[in-house]
Every structure is written in C-alpha cells, then in structure tokens.
C-alpha cells in the first residue's frame, strides 16, 4: 500500500549532493513529492526533508539506497514517529474591490496568516502550518482569485528531547600558497 513517507536526511554540505539525491530518486523510479534543504546546527551538514509516496518495502529500500551515497550521513524515516510538520506558503490574492480586500484580510486573520504585502489590486498572504491548514486557507482564498502561489514543501522534526547527532565531516588541511592565478605555470585551456 502506498503511503506518504517523510525522511529526514542529513548530508554533507558539498557540491553536487542534491544532484546525487535527486538522481537516485529518478534512477530508482521514486517520485519526490517535496524536498527541502537547509543548514543544520552542525557546520558542514545540511538537512533535507523528503516526502515520498511509497509502500513500506519501497521506503526501506529507499533508505538503504540513500545510505549507499557516500555523502549521506544519516537517514531517518520519521513517518511513524510523533513529529511536527510545517510548511510555509505565500499566496498572492487578487483584491479588485474593497469588499474583496476586507474579506481576504478577515480570512487571513481567521487562519492566523500574515499579510506581508499590500498593493492596490492584490495582497500577499503568508502562513506556516501543516499541509491541511494550507489547503484549507487556499480553498477559501481561491474564489477571490489566486494570482501566484509558492510553497516550501514539508519540513519535519521528531517531538521530544532526543536528537540525531551527526558528526561534521572532517575538513582537509589546505596549504598556504600563492593564489593559482598568480602562478605562471598554470594554464586553464586545454
């Protein structure tokens, strides 16, 4: 049975890592529903939250495949754990009449969304919450005319004091030497 699985994936912050992850999903024919990535509390380590539709066996294989990537430090399928999920959305809504505008602002308040931009014919509403809340907000705003929409995708964190400790990757020593450009022995063309 296909269900949504949320993975927290710790990766080394190196060039091409996102490409490796994306390539793995494509190659093994898994569909990414959403993927977010950003820095963590540990320097040199990034954290991804990846949302995938898969059965349980598929999710296990995906985890094993992610671990095969040398730059992947830790994979945590948090689907079955008590966790907090959030997503951020910005919605640009048409407000052509005053009545419209008042109504949109009221709806935003009900959803505890913030208005972050007001223009003569539109407002931008921003909110953070679960996918359900965002869907709910979108549903009531849609009749007014959604001009533009951007969502970050899901981020998640397991509740409680436990944390995933990830060691930063060791940095290699760099020698001190003149910048390459100053060195006449180097040519860049083939």
């Amino acid at each position, binding site marked *: 049975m296909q269900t949504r699985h949320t993975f927290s994936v710790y*990766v*080394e912050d190196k*060039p*091409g890592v996102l*490409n*490796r992850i994306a*390539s*793995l999903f494509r*190659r093994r024919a898994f569909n990414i529903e959403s993927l977010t990535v950003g820095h963590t509390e540990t320097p040199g380590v990034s954290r991804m939250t990846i949302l995938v539709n898969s059965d349980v*066996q598929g999710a*296990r*294989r995906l985890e*094993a*495949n992610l*671990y*095969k*990537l*040398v*730059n*992947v*430090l*830790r994979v945590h399928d948090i689907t079955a754990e008590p966790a907090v999920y959030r997503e951020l959305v910005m919605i640009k809504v048409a407000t052509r009449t005053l009545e419209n505008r008042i109504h949109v602002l009221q709806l935003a308040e009900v959803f505890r969304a913030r208005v972050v931009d007001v223009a003569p014919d539109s407002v931008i509403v921003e909110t953070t919450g679960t996918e359900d809340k965002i869907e709910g907000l979108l549903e009531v705003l849609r009749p007014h005319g959604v001009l533009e929409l951007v969502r970050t995708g899901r981020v998640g964190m397991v509740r409680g004091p436990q944390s995933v400790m*990830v*060691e*930063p*990757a*060791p940095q*290699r*020593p*760099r*020698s001190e*030497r003149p910048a*390459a*450009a100053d*060195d006449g*022995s*180097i*040519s*860049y*063309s*083939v």
Partner: protein
Amino acid sequence: MSSMRTGAQIVWEALVREGVTTVFGYPGGAILPAYDAMLEYPIRHVLVRHEQGATHMADGYARASGEVGVAIATSGPGATNMVTGIATAMLDSSPILCITGQVGSKVIGTDAFQETDVTGVTLPITKHNYLVSDVDDVAPTIHEALYVARSGRPGPVLVDITKDAQQASTEMQWDPGAVKLPGYRPDLRASDAEYRRAAELINGSKRPLILAGHGVQLSGASGEVRQFAERADMPVAMTLLGIGGFPALHPLNLGMMGMHGEAWVNQAVQEADLLLALGMRFDDRVTGNVKTYAPNARKVHIDIDPSEFNKNVKVDVALAGDLRMVLEELSPLIAAGDRKSWLAAIREMKGEVAVRDIQNLPDSGHLYAAHVIHDIWRLTKGKAVVVTDVGQHQMWEAQYYHHEQPRSLITSGGLGTMGFALPAAIGAKLAQPDAEVWVVAGDGGFQMTMAELATIAQEKIKINVAIINNGYLGMVRQWQEFFYERRYAATPLLSPDFAKLAECFGLTGMQVDKRQDVVPSVERARADERTVVIDFRVEQEDTVYPMVPAGADLHNMIRRPSPNPIVETADDE
C-alpha cells in the same frame, strides 16, 4: 622546494603508495600534465586504442586479481568513451578507479574545448565520483577513491582532476590511515536474532538450495561456502557471475541457474523449500517471472548491500554484511545436515533431462560452439582464465567450460556489454601473468573492440582468442527465431578474415571449420608465444538451450529438441 610536488606528480605518487603498478589509458590535452609526470614513476602504462578498452582492461584486471584496476583518460570524449566500461563495472560490482583530466577550473562551465560535465555524466553509474580542482585535494581524494572502490560492495569510482590542479604545486599530505567518511558504512552486521532466525530456517529445511552469486568471489568466501554446503549437505546453484565460486565438479554443484541454466537446476529452485542466497541479487535473468519464482521456498538472503533485500524477491530473513564474515558467524549455528533424499530427487530430475548438447550434436561434419568450448576446457584442464563477451558463446562457455577456481570466469553479466572480452582479457592477463588466458567471443562483439589487438601487439601480451563465428549476432538471431518469426532483421553479419586480421597486427591467426581441427589448433595456440586468434567457423543457426523466455516462469523452459545422441564426453578421454 624539494618536498613540493605538482598535482600531476601527486597523482602518481599516491597511486604508487597505494600499490598500483599498472594503469590503462590514453593521453589528451587536459590530462597531459599527469602524463608528463608519469615518466618519473614506476608505473606500467598500457596505451589502449579506445578509452572504453581502458575501462574494460581495468575491470578485467580487478576481476582477475581482486585489486582495484586503474584507467586514465582525458576530458570530454576521452571521459565519455569510458562510460560503457564504467557502467559495466557498476552492474557487476567491479572495483575500478577512473582518473580523467578536466579543463581548467576557471573555464569550467564555459563549454571550453573538450569540456564535459564528467562527474554529472557518470553520477548514476559510479559508486562515487569526485571533481578535484584544488591540488591539496589530489592525494586524499585518490586515497579515498581507492578505498571506496574496493570496500563494501565494490564498484567504479571516478576522479576528475582539473588541469590547473594537476599543474599547481603543494606540499603533499599523505595519511595512509583509514579514510574518514562519516556517511560511509561498508561494514554492516545483522543482529543476533536475525542470525538465529536464519539458522532456524536452514536447519528446518528439507529441500534447501544455495544460490551462489558474484559476492562469493568478491568476498573471497569460496572456501567458507564449500565448507558450509558440505556440512549442511546443501546443493549449490550458481549465477553466471557466481561460476568459479564453487568447484564445478563438486558433487553438490548443480551448475548455472536462470535463463540458460540447466532444466534440473531451475526445477530444483522451483521445488526447494529454502533458498539461501549468497551474494546474489535475484536478477531477472535468474528468477524469470518473480510471481511464480520458487513458490515453496523460504528465502534467506545474505548480501553486503542492504538495498538488495526485497528488491526483486521478498525474503524471509536478510543478513547484511560481508559474506565471509557472515558465514563464519552463521556456520556454528547450523546443524550438520543429511539431505540424501533431496539430493536423490535432484539426481532424478537431472536423469530425466540430462541430455546436453555436447553429447547429442549431430555428427554432420559441422563445427559446433559446444565442441570448441568443450575442447578448450579439456585441453586447458579447466585451469584457464576465460574471458567472454556477451551472447550465445557466453552461455555456451558457462555451460561447457567447467570452472574449478574463483576468478577464472570473467564476463559482463549485469550490463551485458558486447566488446568486453578482448580488453578485459588484456587486463586479466596483466593481473595474472602466469595464467593461461582465453578469450571466448562472438564475431559480433569481437568486432566492437578488436582494435585492442594493436594494444596486445604493442604490449607484447600473450593470450588466446577463440572467436565463435556463426555469421550472425547469434543471441539476437535466436530471439528472432523464437519470438519474431525468424525475421532476421540486422543480424546477419559480415566479418573480416579474422586470421588474416591477426596477422596484420603481427599476431598469429588460424581458421577452423572442422571438428577434428579444433584440438590441434588449440594446442598450437597454447604453444605459440604470440597471441593467437582462432576463427572458429561454427554452425550458423545453432541455439542455446534450454531457455526461459524473458519474464516467463522458471519451470516453463524451452527444452532442447529431441536428441539424436552421439557419444562424446569428457569421460572418453
């Protein structure tokens, strides 16, 4: 300044310190600094005729020795020519290191001359790859790359080094110790509970079967597998790449399973109550239709790569880890077995259908591939390292050459790369200079990489080449015969006179089209100091039997046509 080295020098310094003695390569602009520095180091460089050949040679070297094979090429086309060889090594878990030159770091992204995003191109077909643009990264990256290539489930690793990183100088930092890769876990261990569960299933089984894959040889576990099988009294079936991991003439050996496995082997799989899969991955060539595969069997899967578990076939117990270590831990939990009735039942299945081509080929004066391979086996006493290409001859080799030793059959299994044999054999010969190396190739695959005959001549390499020449792309023709109403689209194949071709390269060439000439030609080839190419003109529309059509049930094989026996077996000797 004396301790300063250029990145180019560091490449070789690092390789030499890692014990690399031989590399296969082709120079070009972006790798020229490295080539220039090479002359100062004790490295044997084999100049190939195409970079694909370099990767297959490195692959053959790795498979014959267990060491990492090294290939080197320039940027752009040099690197892209390596793609097929890298993918071949990837699918067969062969440890190779490919070093490629890259354009200068400042012009990356400008579509500079001979620029290709090589790490991007090879990302899905390497175990890992690196782009090095800082001279300080050269030594640690090569150290790390070799470690990644050979550890865990082995595989190809590519290191792309910009031209400026090769030219810049630095004080070389060398830490020969363990690589610090926090995310890399090559040494997994299953829990005690999983071991107990596996032992329980094995001990309780009445009709168990060991499925031995490439992992047996990669892990160096042939001895352990043999002890295990003997103690538990379990018969052994092998995958194509498993051949050699268990002695062919051992009484517990059944032979190859799968698409062109013997019928009794596949029947034993279907009737087994337990499959113990050792370092194999339930490839579709092995399972046929997975829905009807081994329906009565519990499955215990041992593999170093946990992503293989439940990928194709759902298993009951999975033990992750290096096969040799796992068997060492598992064996004490296994009761000595007595499976006489099961072994007798298999013998009975075998008796029913044990009519093999070699015994039943009509004596029409025609030459059959089976004759050739059978005779090479007899004359080499099963001790040669045989390197095959891909196609009918490959399956016949697997059926008629009986391998007793690990790493004695080298063949492209997973990717099925035509053109693999000749270059891979060059690598194998350099890895095992004392071994007798035979190429068994078809007329199609041989023509894909036959330019490497020049490499053989230049490097004075001695191997023997048996071309199974049937004038067709034989395996494709066979599929057309079975599944496309004999419409032979693009399979009839015109070949040059291979014997004359060999002479052109300064090698020895022969042509054989009669059964009685096989033995003398093989003997002459073995005695010749030069590489010998024998063009065996075999029966054109011969067929590999038995066959499980792609996706069909394993027990629904296309059997051999009713035989008209002539007796000719090894027992006649």
